[in-house]
């Protein structure tokens, strides 16, 4: 079994009309044994930037802590907030620094830039980024998630429709994956703030 599949994860981020949504499952497993249904995989960086980390749980936590540290230092030094683009660049640099002994995480970044235009990026464990304008996925069931997103996604959705779309895509995607699911959480970010909802799904 691949090290990236040891703990299990599923996450999606989608872009809407001046809003983004980011969603993830909550399972923490040790191979086939489920250990927690409350494990945090989505992290808020600032008012308008979220990062989702899928992969080995210890690295999820370490990278999340390192990102917070780097973000706080940036805000103190530069007296300004990191834009999602800058955050994504420095996350990519962070991962590549460990090119020959990497963090086993495959992150997705979602945010709104200064003009409230959605920003999405996803990268592999050594920081190779892509910048799609519709959705990004990561985790142990990316094939399922891609299939659901390609089918359900439409551009220009408002916050409520985007929430429905991303939730259905995630819930359906994790049902055929033994290693992800066991609860789900969705954040919807608009210029007015963040709305967080927990999804009621199959707990198996």
């Amino acid at each position, binding site marked *: 079994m691949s090290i990236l599949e040891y703990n299990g994860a599923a996450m999606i981020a989608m872009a809407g009309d001046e809003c983004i949504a980011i969603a993830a499952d909550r399972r923490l497993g040790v191979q086939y044994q489920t250990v927690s249904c409350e494990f945090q995989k989505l992290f808020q960086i600032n008012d308008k930037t979220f990062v989702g980390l899928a992969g080995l749980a210890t690295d999820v936590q370490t990278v999340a802590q390192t990102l917070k540290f780097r973000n706080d230092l940036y805000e103190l*030094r530069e007296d300004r907030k990191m834009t999602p683009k800058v955050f994504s*660049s420095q996350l990519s*640099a962070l991962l590549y620094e460990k090119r020959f002994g990497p963090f086993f995480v495959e992150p997705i970044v979602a945010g709104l830039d200064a003009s409230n235009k959605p920003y999405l990026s996803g990268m592999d464990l050594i920081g190779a980024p892509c910048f799609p304008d519709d959705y990004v996925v990561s985790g142990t069931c990316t094939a399922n998630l891609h299939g659901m997103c390609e089918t359900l996604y439409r551009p220009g959705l408002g916050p409520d429709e985007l929430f429905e779309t991303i939730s259905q895509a995630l819930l359906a995607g994790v049902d055929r994956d033994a290693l992800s699911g066991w609860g789900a959480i969705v954040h919807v970010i608009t210029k007015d703030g963040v709305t967080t909802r927990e999804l009621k799904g199959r707990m198996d």
Partner: protein
Amino acid sequence: MGDSAYSFSLTTFSRTGKLLQIEYALNAVANGRTSLGIAATNGVVIATDKKLASALVDTKEVSKIEGITQQSGFVYSGLGPDYRVLVRKSRKDAQKYGRLYGEEQPVTQLTKYAASVMQEYTQSGGVRPFGVSLLIAGVDVDEENADKKYTPRLYQVDPSGAYFGWKATAIGRNYVHAKNFLEKRYQEDMELEDAVHTALLTLREGFEGEMTCNNIEVGIVCTDDDEPSFKLLSPEQIQDYLDEAN
């Protein structure tokens, strides 16, 4: 930096609490050729006296104003070789910043870096302070404003590592006189064109001999451009400004 044999700092406190090496470094700056800068509403201008020791020196090969990032540049008064070390280090740090964050290093961060290097050399083993004061000119992206507004910035960094933000300032030979001149002429709503004129007039005030387009250097960065970039004015462009001033 300092060898292990030189693990003590050469810059040490006097009884009165002064760091004399820094004071002497400031003397070296005050003996250097005049440089000045003015921050206008839509850009920044920096200029310097490039008068060289002999008529035989090829002025084209000498470059006092240097671009550091796309949108910022330095000028100095004091010891040229020391200046070039700072230019190299700052350029490298700016590139590192660009690789890490995917965007240009802001002028404020560039200034803090240069200042931090200069301070290091007042508190490290076996080295002396830099014998230059820098004027740093550039524009920063205004994050708050989605229209990508640019804020003009002008900073001075001294050999001690202290840095100051200025609307207009002068350093080097005759700087007191030059600053008084600037104080009288500076206006809050000054635009870049006027600022360049004022800069040239100020430079001419203390100039020994005739000021021509070949024995001064002028650098500008203008926010009216789509992609503001720091550039030197060519001798022809400087000549145009000088002609207008006459």
